[in-house]
């Protein structure tokens, strides 16, 4: 059920980003999916979402997919070094990744988009944090 909600949100984010908003909604959704699920299939979802977004934004096919893949790869790379399940990591990573994304793929409006990302990511990562629904690191699944 939750996964279906994630995928619906992702498709909605792609549709909105391609037609109305210049805010990197898809990127934030993928980061959220990655932080919350932490499974290998997130890579495939990131690539698929990137290809869809490329097609809809008339960008060269594969560039968004490559960016999303690298972003997800970085999260998985640093999951042993940082508390990737923490709210602040999600918000900060979303802000940094969105900043780079906006510089690379769009011309403007940088400040308005970054403010939107800050608000959106705080909401996405903050709400589950406060409701304590994030998967917690326990000694059983903690990777040394």
């Amino acid at each position: 059920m939750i996964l279906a909600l994630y995928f619906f949100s992702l498709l909605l984010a792609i549709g909105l980003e391609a037609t109305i908003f210049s805010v990197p909604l898809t990127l934030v959704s993928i980061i959220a999916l990655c932080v919350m699920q932490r499974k290998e299939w997130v890579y495939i979802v990131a690539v698929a979402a990137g290809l869809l977004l490329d097609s809809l934004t008339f960008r060269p096919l594969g560039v968004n997919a490559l960016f999303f893949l690298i972003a997800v790869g970085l999260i998985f790379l640093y999951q042993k070094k940082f508390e990737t399940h923490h709210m602040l990591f999600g918000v900060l990573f979303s802000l940094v990744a969105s900043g780079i994304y906006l510089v690379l793929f769009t011309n403007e409006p940088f400040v308005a988009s970054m403010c939107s990302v800050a608000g959106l990511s705080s909401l996405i990562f903050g709400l589950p944090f406060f409701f304590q629904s994030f998967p917690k690191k326990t000694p059983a699944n903690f990777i040394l």
Partner: protein
Amino acid sequence: MKEKQYFLPVFVLCLVFVFFIVFLGRFGVLGFFTNSVQNVFFPFGQLLHSQTVISSSTVESLQKENASLRTQLVDMHALQADNAALRDQFETSVPLTNTLLPVQVVGMGNAIPNISFPENIIIHAGKKEGVQSGNVVIVKNEVVGTIASVSDHYAVVQLVSSRQSSFPAITSASQAIGVAKGNGNGDIILDNVLLSQDLKVQDTVVTKGNQDIQGKGFPPDLLVGKIVSVDKNPSSLFQKARIVPLIPFDQLTMVFVVRN
């Protein structure tokens, strides 16, 4: 027991796949995929876009009236110039109605509604409808932009207010010639105007015409906007003016493509 994870192999596989897609995409092999995705998603996008367009009837009617009055003003200035008969003929024939293609707007690029202005719009017509890269897009006799990229059934229109846009323009009253450059956020700058030429606030700016032998480029006498401020410095080589378009690009729902 801890489940074994395969982050690195999956990442490498996906990376290889993406590079393969990028490689194929460069040769246009995956055009069918792009077209299919656009055909599925853009009808929903059109629905979303139409919901965001604010329809304030009073403001809309005043804007229409204002645009209509400015059109009449341009006509009047043109009639006052020499060779009135020839001008009259051009005014009634540019652009030719049989070259116009009415097209629905399905999306906006690089914009947040009511916060920032779009740099481009996406329209529901492409190669299959005879739209080519470089075609001019208008509404009535007001210029909207040019086709920047085109797929089978969709195209991206680069607005005249986008930072990449640049074309020759002329003021209707004083006939001052300059280069209209997009300034982003809905603004246009009329630059490279000689200091000796007269720029006035509220003067209307029209395209000078820069069509090539294949008919690509802006036809002359299309409305660009009105001058809202003039920046004239005696020590500079040129003066410039800020132009505001007469039509709200972010509220367009239908435009016309001028086919060659």
